[in-house]
C-alpha cells in the first residue's frame, strides 16, 4: 500500500506540550480520521505536515517528498482546511479565486466557479459577510479547485450546523471516491465514524493506535457477564473491568480472538456483547494512558 504521508520520529516541543517520537503512515486513496482529546497534538501534527511550523526533529514525507525541501510542490498538491478560515475578508470570493489562481500550477477556474455555485456562495459579496459555514465551503472550493492529491482538514466541522456538516462530509466522501487521500482531524467522532476508512488515535502527543475503522469496530466490544457465569480465562482478555450488582462488564480489543471462549455464555444468555463506538474507544484509551 502506498503512503500519502509518512512521519518518522517527529518531535516538536512547546513550553507546555511535547510531540515526541511520532510515527505515522497515512495510506493513499483513503480517508483517515485522526481522533484525540483537546491538546493531544492533532493540530500541531497537521501544521507540521503543512510546513506551517518548524519541526525540532524527524522526517515528514508527503507524496514521497520531504515537506520542507519541496514546500511549493507539496502545497500545490495538498488542499488544506483549518479550523479557522483565513481570507482577505474585505475582498470577494471571486477576487480570492483570481488571486490564488496565480500561485497554483493546476488551478481550474471553471471548477472554482462551479463549486461556488454548488455551495451557494455569492461570488461578488465580501467574504466578511459570509457565515462560518460559508467560509469553510469557500476553503473547500479553493482546496478542490487546484486538483490536490491530498486534502487535509483540521477540525473542519466544529461550529457548523448539521446541514453544512452533512454536505461537507458528503463532499469528502466523493473526493475520496475519486482516488484522493483525505486526512481529517476531529473530536467529533460521529464524523469519523461516518466517513473514515482508517482511524488514528492520538493521545498526549503520540499515536496510540492506528487501524482500519472496520477492524477497530469489529475488534473492540463491551462484554457483560452475569454474576456466577464468570470464567477466569475470559477475565484475562478484558480491560477496564467493573463489577456491579448484575455481574461484571469489561472491554476487549480482540473480540474475534476470544469469540469462541464466549460462545457458550452467549448461547445461554449469560454473556452479552455490545458494540462500542470510536468515542468509547477514545475514552478507554485516555483512561489507560
Amino acid at each position, binding site marked *: 500500500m502506498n503512503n500519502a504521508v509518512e512521519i518518522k520520529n517527529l518531535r516538536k516541543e512547546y513550553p507546555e506540550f511535547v510531540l515526541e517520537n511520532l510515527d505515522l503512515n497515512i495510506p493513499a486513496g483513503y480517508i483517515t480520521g485522526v481522533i484525540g482529546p483537546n491538546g493531544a497534538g492533532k493540530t500541531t501534527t497537521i501544521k507540521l505536515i*503543512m510546513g506551517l511550523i*518548524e519541526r525540532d526533529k524527524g522526517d515528514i514525507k508527503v507524496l514521497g517528498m520531504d515537506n520542507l525541501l519541496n514546500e511549493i510542490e507539496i*502545497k500545490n498538491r495538498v488542499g488544506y482546511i483549518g479550523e479557522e478560515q*483565513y481570507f*482577505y*475578508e474585505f475582498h470577494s470570493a471571486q477576487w480570492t479565486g483570481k488571486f490564488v489562481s496565480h*500561485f497554483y500550477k493546476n488551478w481550474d477556474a471553471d471548477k472554482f466557479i462551479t463549486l461556488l455555485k454548488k455551495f451557494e456562495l455569492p461570488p461578488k459579496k465580501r467574504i466578511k459577510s459570509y457565515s462560518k459555514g460559508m467560509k469553510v465551503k469557500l476553503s473547500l472550493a479553493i482546496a478542490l479547485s487546484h486538483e490536490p492529491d491530498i486534502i487535509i482538514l483540521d477540525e473542519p466541522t466544529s461550529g457548523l450546523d448539521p446541514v453544512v456538516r452533512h454536505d461537507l462530509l458528503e463532499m469528502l466522501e466523493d473526493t475520496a471516491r475519486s482516488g484522493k487521500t483525505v486526512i481529517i482531524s476531529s473530536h467529533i467522532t460521529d464524523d469519523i465514524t461516518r466517513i473514515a476508512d482508517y482511524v488514528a488515535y492520538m493521545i498526549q502527543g503520540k499515536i496510540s493506535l492506528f487501524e482500519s475503522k472496520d477492524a477497530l469496530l469489529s475488534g473492540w466490544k463491551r462484554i457483560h457477564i452475569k454474576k456466577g457465569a464468570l470464567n477466569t480465562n475470559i477475565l484475562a482478555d478484558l480491560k477496564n473491568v467493573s463489577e456491579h450488582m448484575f455481574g461484571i462488564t469489561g472491554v476487549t480489543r480482540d473480540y474475534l480472538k476470544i469469540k469462541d471462549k464466549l460462545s457458550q455464555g452467549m448461547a445461554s444468555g449469560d454473556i452479552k456483547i455490545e458494540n462500542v463506538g470510536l468515542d468509547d474507544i477514545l475514552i478507554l484509551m485516555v483512561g489507560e494512558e
Partner: protein
Amino acid sequence: MLRLIKKFSWPFILYSVLLTGMIFPLFNHDRITGPDPLSLSFVFTLAPYVFYVAIGAIWTHEQIEYKFKGHIFLKLLPIKDRDIVLVKFLLVYLSVLIFVIFNLIAFTSISKDPSFFDPSRSFIVLNGVFCLVFSALLYQIIFKFGFDKVGKYIIIFWVFILAAPLILVIFVLPKIGLTRNEIIMFFAKANWILMAAAGTIIYFGLMQLAVKIKRTSQY
C-alpha cells in the same frame, strides 16, 4: 510575484504620494525668497520625513495583514517565504528611493550653490540609508514576534521621530560643542555615493536575514 506586488503596494503608494506631495511647495521657494539659511533648515526638517513614508506604509500594511491574518493565508499558498519578504523589501526600497530622489530634485531647484546643495544631498541620502536599515530591522522584529506584539509600540516610534531632531539641536549638539556650520561642513564633505551604495548593500543583506527569520516563524 507581480501579483504580490500589486496586493502589497497600495500603502506604499499612498504614503509616497502624500509625503512627496509635501515637498511640492519647495519648488517655488527660490522664486519667493531665493536660497537662504532657511532653505537648509527645510532640508534638515523634511529629509527625515522619509521615515514616515517607509515606516507608515509598513505599519499600515502589516496592521491590515495582522487583522485579517493575511500572513497565515499566504503561508497556506504555494508561495516562497523568500518572495513575500523580497516584495516587501523591494516596495520599501522603491518608496525610499522615490522620496529621496524627489527631495534631491526639489532642493536642486532651489540652488546649485555647493555650500547649499552638497550638505543637503548628503543629508537626504543619509536619512534614506538610516530609514532603510531601520525598516529592515523593523521587518525582522515583526517576522520574529508578530505585529500584535510590536504594533503597540508604534506611538513611541512616532514621538521619537518628532522629538529626535529637537532633542538633537537643543540638547545634544550644544553639549558636544558642535556648531551648525560644523555639521553643515561634515555633510558637505561626506561621500553620498558611498553612503547610498553601503546602505543598499546592508539593506539587502538584512533582507537575507529576514528571509531566514520568516522561514522559521509563523508570522
